[in-house]
């Protein structure tokens, strides 16, 4: 019972986080802010996927969350490397 309320609160909080990140993604003055906003959105989407797992009671979406973590990190590092060096794999 109390777990259901806490789960609703957490899902709402992370959904609101995604909206706030989206605002920063569109208004961010520098390119670094936009990369950071996309990175944070990936992490928040990962949290939403895991909370969906808790709600449905199964453990099937674990691989999806792991893939989100991996591709989010690699995307951030690749974009930063591209801006720093002009190429990703030198």
């Amino acid at each position, binding site marked *: 019972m*109390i*777990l259901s*309320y*806490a*789960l609703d*609160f*957490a899902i*709402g*909080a*992370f959904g*609101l*986080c*995604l909206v*706030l*990140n989206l*605002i*920063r993604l569109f208004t961010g*003055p*520098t*390119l*670094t*802010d936009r*990369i*950071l*906003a996309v*990175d*944070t959105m990936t*992490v*928040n989407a*990962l*949290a939403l996927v*895991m*909370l969906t*797992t*808790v709600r449905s*009671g199964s*453990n099937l979406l*674990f691989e999806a*969350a*792991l893939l989100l*973590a*991996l591709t989010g*990190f690699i995307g*951030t*590092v690749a974009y*930063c*490397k591209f*801006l*720093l060096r002009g190429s990703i794999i*030198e």
Partner: protein
Amino acid sequence: MTFALEIVIAAFLVAGGIFGLIGSYGLLRLRDPMQRLHAPTKATTIGVGTALVASAFHLALQGQGVSWHELMIAIFLLLTAPVSALFLAKTHIFRTFPKSDLPDPGTGTPWATHDAAWPAKPDRINPPS
């Protein structure tokens, strides 16, 4: 016992939601790009890590034992958040400050961000003997 575990998981979930909100609100609210780097890399990582711990212990409620996979994602996030923050800070320095504005690093070499010879060329890795 089950009720106590439920209370603990609910507390983890609420803490995760609050920490995630703090991180994303800080990303929106802080003024300077380098200040904005603080909020998501610290508060959001803690928030998502807490939600992952709650998710890991949730299956124990149904008598299926703790699923330790989720802790793998949490450890991965804790390891990779500083790396991406470092790359974002380097990118910001590289795109914002010209070379002449940066203080001397005191090592006799230029800043690694502006050093054209980084990473080392193959002939530097294996100098001809």
